[in-house]
């Protein structure tokens, strides 16, 4: 554990108005870790994930990506990133997959995937296209590359969104309930892709309700309850021996 963690959250705090969503959350994810973040709705798990790439700005605490602390400046209402360029640079190294896919509707699947590599990372177009084709083949939708998102099923859209995140060559991948908006029969295809990414040794933080994924694929489970980490550890440990009454209740449904 001497290596610099890929993601380190220290005493993270965040409120929306009078509602305190995160009450001092600390977390470390190391290179190759697959962290499942569990919790009932309103527990702050999505907010915590969104603080990692500053889609939500924490009011207090610290976010560090591979040892680099993201600078925050106080404002009247809370905090804002001190250096927008630092945030943009950091974001381009973090791939994010959303619950509702959020593919760019006016672009084809291929255009979605090559957008950030070409326009943010300034890589040569030919290289970006070749890499995108390979990624699309990997997630199993190479034949859909010229389709628009609206013409795909939910599962295909989410795999396209995963491809788009992968094309950034991310150091860390964030998944915000990636299967929650899918029809039950489409969940499997997305989870299979995520499992293969985990097996490649990618660093992933996954907010999920998929207990199977948390148990079998991740090497670390974090249970959030009312803005604090209520239980965490290796899935085998946490699922069988957790002393947290709340977590037991959560598992019992």
């Amino acid at each position, binding site marked *: 554990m001497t290596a610099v963690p890929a993601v380190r959250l220290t005493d993270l705090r965040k409120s929306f108005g009078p509602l305190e969503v995160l009450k001092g959350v600390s977390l470390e994810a190391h290179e190759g870790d697959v962290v499942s973040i569990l919790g009932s709705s309103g527990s702050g798990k999505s907010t915590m994930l969104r603080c990692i790439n500053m889609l939500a700005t924490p009011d207090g605490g610290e976010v560090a990506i591979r040892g680099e602390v993201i600078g925050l400046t106080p404002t009247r209402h809370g905090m804002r990133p001190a250096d927008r360029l630092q945030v943009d640079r950091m974001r381009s190294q973090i791939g*994010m997959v959303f619950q509702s*896919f959020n593919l760019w509707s006016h672009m084809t699947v291929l255009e979605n995937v090559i957008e*950030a590599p070409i326009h943010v*990372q300034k890589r040569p177009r030919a290289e970006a296209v070749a890499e995108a084709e390979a990624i699309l083949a990997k997630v199993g939708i190479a034949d859909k590359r010229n389709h628009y998102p609206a013409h795909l099923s939910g599962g295909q859209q989410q795999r396209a969104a995963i491809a788009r995140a992968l094309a950034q060559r991310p150091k860390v991948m964030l998944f915000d309930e990636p299967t929650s908006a899918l029809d039950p029969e489409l969940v499997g295809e997305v989870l299979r892709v995520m499992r293969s990414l985990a097996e490649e040794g990618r660093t992933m933080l996954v907010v999920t309700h998929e207990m199977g994924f948390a148990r079998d694929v991740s090497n670390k489970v974090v249970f959030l309850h009312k803005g604090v980490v209520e239980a965490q550890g290796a899935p085998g440990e946490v699922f069988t021996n957790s002393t947290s009454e709340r977590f037991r209740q959560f598992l019992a449904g």
Partner: protein
Amino acid sequence: MDFAFLYDTLLTLLPGVPLTLKLAFSAVALGAVLALGLAMMRLSGLRALDWPARVYVFLFRSTPLLVQIFLIYYGLGQFREVRTSWLWPFLREPYWCAVLALTLNTAAYASEIFRGGLLAVPHGQVEAARAAGMSRGLLFRRIVLPVAIRQALPAYGSELILMIKATALASIITLMEVTGLAAKLIAETYRAIEVFIVAGSIYLVLNFVVTRLVLAAERRLTPHLRPAPVAILNDGGAA
């Protein structure tokens, strides 16, 4: 029907078409730039920008275009400051007064159309762009504007048609575009019905072309809103 006279009338009015189009396109082009600025002022969230834009839109949408043309053409010249300024060579020309009035007018309407388009950009798509590391400028250029333009296109097409028709008002300040020529011909011949039928038909044809162009642009820009073409659906495994 005196077809020979109708034909002669057509030949008399057609030379007015270039001026009609010039007025319309200058105003639309300049107005679009102004409208985008106004829409962004409205959406800036800053009172100091939002309110001037609100007042502008209110004034220009709530008064007749004809009154605005009169105010600019007859009104501005009353002020010595205007007459001695560098703008006077333009503002004393009826052509530039008409372009100015049409521009200011269309900008008010178009800014609301653009604002609607910008507001309709799904928040999730903006968030995905931010998460990918796009700067504000890049995000606006690559995601927000393209999506907003597609949303605004149908309403903006109507505005283009309205502008073609609005140029007819320029005839009132001596400009010899289609309607100006028609009015002159009627004064000479007293044959109002035939002349206005021909004039109206010319606008009909112009707007038919505009409609088709907007439709073509819409088809080109929004393949994602149509059902997937069968040819693409069947290319499975072609990778």
